[in-house]
């Protein structure tokens, strides 16, 4: 697609310009998508809800995204695309996800999930060719291998057996694959070793157009309960020949490549679905304030400000994970897993709290003002993949807990401050540098550092005093966790497949989530007075602490009102309820 550079600014001018360029692209897309509440807007919520109801992708909006060369967002800048930093990718995608998570998955982000393995381990020629396909408007899909406790999307897998004369032959079927019918490239994680274990699978990049007749069968579309407009269907391979040069990385690299690329996918998903819940929060504020002269009834103060604080916390967690992928690529894996473990669950609870605020209006399913809740309740589980998604994160965390307890917690230096500081320059995302285990725990170190700096404020009262108490509470939790985790079995495998260990991974994930909130709050330079004020961090941490089941101090006077005033201000001015305070189209 030659028009890309003309229609949207591509990254140029080096790392110092990346952020500005990505924000400019996001602003342009926001403005092209237009007022979500205008019933006549072909890209507005009414049109998007109607497409969902018809179970079709929103064609006009897909065409707009094609015109903008949206697929280039998923192609590394080194290969001619716009992908520089993972945190900026999430920013650039948010205008779409704010309106329609299913469109974000169906039209684009699936290509990113699929192609990660190629950017991580594909040869130069393979990467170049795939980049060319995406830049020309092509699409890639991913054929996952089956994970433990798989749901429909992760169930079943393909087997690749060596073919006489070289290459492999693929067999098997999967019934629920997004874009299976319209992908220009398929990235398949196929079993190449019948034994279970870390070397059981290999990755292949397939060109559907090159399948020999009779070896690929497209199965009918599957109507899913969530993301109803996305095109899920099945694929069956029966001796589908795969040439030797289709192998991505080395034979047996599949599981490791999944681990390496999933951490990017997990972090990006958390960074974009937060924007979708933001839309529902705006609709709940509208419902609570309508007909009351703009005032919000007292009983809604707690849920509205609670959700606002959670959204800021989720943005903090996701943003820190996304920045870590570039800054600390060998060590981001465990935090990315913790964030993906926590964020979808938090957001699901947030939608339920907002359902209470919206009341009967929440069932006004076609209305652009109030219909976002009903659709997102359906779409969010598909985006997060439910239990199978969280369990796959726990499988990354659980085997590391003992090592972290023994050698990392309370023993490491803090991460560089650029990890948290908005506007700081960061290295580009390099899939090849991503690690999958080991490297310590920079977020635990950050928590201890934050608490130590705040310690002087303990007992002084006020917002900062409470913040300091909360920080110490999480540090005490980490200390208690360290004692328990030191006693875990040294070897992995079955000994760790214990419900009591899953409990520990839950506690761990909440503790490092709190660390992200503290890190982002500490990094404020005062440019945004609301974020520099401790109120949002106090409420966010109090809620994380309540989830952890630890005693939390009473909220200081004025905390809720500080958040409520800001929330109403942002709603009235059309500003996003995240760390960026982005102006929304109106």
């Amino acid at each position, binding site marked *: 697609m030659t028009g890309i550079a003309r229609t949207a600014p591509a990254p140029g001018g080096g790392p110092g310009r990346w952020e500005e360029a990505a924000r400019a692209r996001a602003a342009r897309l926001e403005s092209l998508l237009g007022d979500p509440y205008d019933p006549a807007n072909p890209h507005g919520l009414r049109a998007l809800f109607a497409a969902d109801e018809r179970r079709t992708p929103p064609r006009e909006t897909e065409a707009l995204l094609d015109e903008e060369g949206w697929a280039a967002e998923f192609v590394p800048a080194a290969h001619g695309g716009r992908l520089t930093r993972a945190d900026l990718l999430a920013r650039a995608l948010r205008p779409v996800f704010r309106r329609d998570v299913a469109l974000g998955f169906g039209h684009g982000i699936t290509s990113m999930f699929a192609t990660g393995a190629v950017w991580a381990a594909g040869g130069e020629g393979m990467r170049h060719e795939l980049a060319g396909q995406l830049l020309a408007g092509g699409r890639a899909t991913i054929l996952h*291998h089956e*994970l*433990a*406790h798989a*749901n429909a999307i992760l169930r079943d897998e393909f087997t690749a057996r060596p073919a006489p004369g070289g290459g492999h032959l693929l067999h098997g079927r999967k019934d*629920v694959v997004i874009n299976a019918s319209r992908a220009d490239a398929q990235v398949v994680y196929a079993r190449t070793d019948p034994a279970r274990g*870390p070397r059981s699978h290999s990755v292949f990049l397939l060109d559907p157009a090159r399948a020999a007749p009779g070896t690929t069968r497209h199965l009918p579309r599957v109507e899913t*309960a*969530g993301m109803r407009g996305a095109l899920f269907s099945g694929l069956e391979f029966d001796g589908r020949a795969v040439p030797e040069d289709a192998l991505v990385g080395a034979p*047996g*690299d599949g*599981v*490791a*490549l*999944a*681990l390496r690329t999933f951490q990017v996918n997990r972090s990006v998903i958390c960074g974009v679905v937060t924007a979708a819940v933001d839309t529902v929060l705006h609709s709940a504020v509208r419902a609570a304030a309508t007909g009351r002269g703009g005032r919000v009834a007292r*009983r809604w103060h707690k849920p509205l400000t*609670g959700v606002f604080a959670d959204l800021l916390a989720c943005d903090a967690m996701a943003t820190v994970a996304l920045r870590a992928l570039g800054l*600390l*690529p060998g*060590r981001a894996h465990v935090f990315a897993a913790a964030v993906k473990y926590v964020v979808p669950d938090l957001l699901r*609870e947030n939608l*339920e709290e907002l*359902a209470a605020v919206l*009341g*009967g209006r929440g*069932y006004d*399913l076609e209305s652009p003002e109030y219909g976002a809740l009903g659709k997102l309740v*359906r779409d969010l*589980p*598909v985006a997060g993949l*439910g*239990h*199978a998604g969280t*369990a796959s994160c*726990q*499988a990354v965390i*659980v085997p590391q807990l003992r*090592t972290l307890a023994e050698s990392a917690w309370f023993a490491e230096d803090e991460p560089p401050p650029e990890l948290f500081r908005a506007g700081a320059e960061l290295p580009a995302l390099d899939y090849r540098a*991503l*690690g*999958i*285990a*080991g*490297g310590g725990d920079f977020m635990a170190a950050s928590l201890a550092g934050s608490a130590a700096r705040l310690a002087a404020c303990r007992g002084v009262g006020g917002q900062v005093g409470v913040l300091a108490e909360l920080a110490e509470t999480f540090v005490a939790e980490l200390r208690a966790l360290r004692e328990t985790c030191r006693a875990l079995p040294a*070897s*992995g*495998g079955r000994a760790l*497949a*214990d*419900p*009591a260990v*899953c*409990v*520990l991974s*839950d*506690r761990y994930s909440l503790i490092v989530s709190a660390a992200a909130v503290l890190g982002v709050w500490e990094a404020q330079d005062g440019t945004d007075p609301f974020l520099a004020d401790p109120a949002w961090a106090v409420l966010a941490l109090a*809620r994380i602490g309540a*989830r952890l*089941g630890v005693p939390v101090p009473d909220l200081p006077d004025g905390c809720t009102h500080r958040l409520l005033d800001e929330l109403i201000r942002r709603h009235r001015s059309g500003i996003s309820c995240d760390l960026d305070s982005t102006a929304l189209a109106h």
Partner: protein
Amino acid sequence: MNSPADTFPSDPRPAGTGHAVASVRAGPAEAGPADLDRISEPVHVVGPDGPWHRVREGMRSRGNAVVFTTWGQWLGTAVTDPGLRPLLGGDWQRYRRTEDPLIRFRFLTSRLVTKYTAAAALDARATDLNLAYKIGGRPYLRGLDQVDISLTHTDDLIAVAVSRTGRIGVDAEPAGRAMSFDLLHSHVCSPAERAELELLPAGRRSAALLRLWTLKEAYTKAIGQGLRLGFTEFGFGADGEGLLAPDGRPASRGEWAFSTRRVLGRYLLSVASHDAGLDSSRDTAAHTMLDEGFMGAVADLLAPAAPGGAGTGADP
């Protein structure tokens, strides 16, 4: 912490008994046939020994299970179990602090029934589970999100529901409890429900209102909100039409199933069950949930003596 399973302080229901529940048939009742098929029939578990196979069977076939018991049946086990403290876990302090013996033992039994039911669904030991509470009070099993749970008690009945397809909520009331339509409709009924109930003979309104009440409790508990979600903001039809908007239009796309049944001959038990549509794994065992490939790849890199595995383990 007060959970939605406990009586809400602002609960407007009156005490006492009154009219017979005319519209409630014995056994399966109330909901449309499709929904009854989606929610497992309640199982009477008389003690820690079960029968639990029916819970596992319900989880496999329908994705959910519902159990009920009376707290007296569990009390012997409950007070003599030497492992009570680890069994209660985070609830131990609340149990110890509760002075009223009736409330104390009912609390104890309800938590034990919940943990044993969850243990059956997760193929785990009850003592290994951590029963925790979300901010709104909804109980859950920390670290094990393959199942959602809900519990309720009324008089001597305790009921627990568990699901692997999505949120679940359960509520029970004595079937003979009088519900004054005149006093309560403005707190309980949506406009569409009110219109429907007004068409009924006066003698049948109380029973119809009680059914609506238990369904509404079950639904708001399923989404973790309790009475925070106003009962007049959503509704149900008389013939099992599922969740409805205040004006009577359908309010969901079939993700929710509801059932109302009579148990022990004297309680009305309603269940609201959500299906997120992911076609979740029938295997809900806690010991099989961590992917062996992922665990193995991570463990290989951490073990100093093991060969390097496939990834780059650390920063360059």
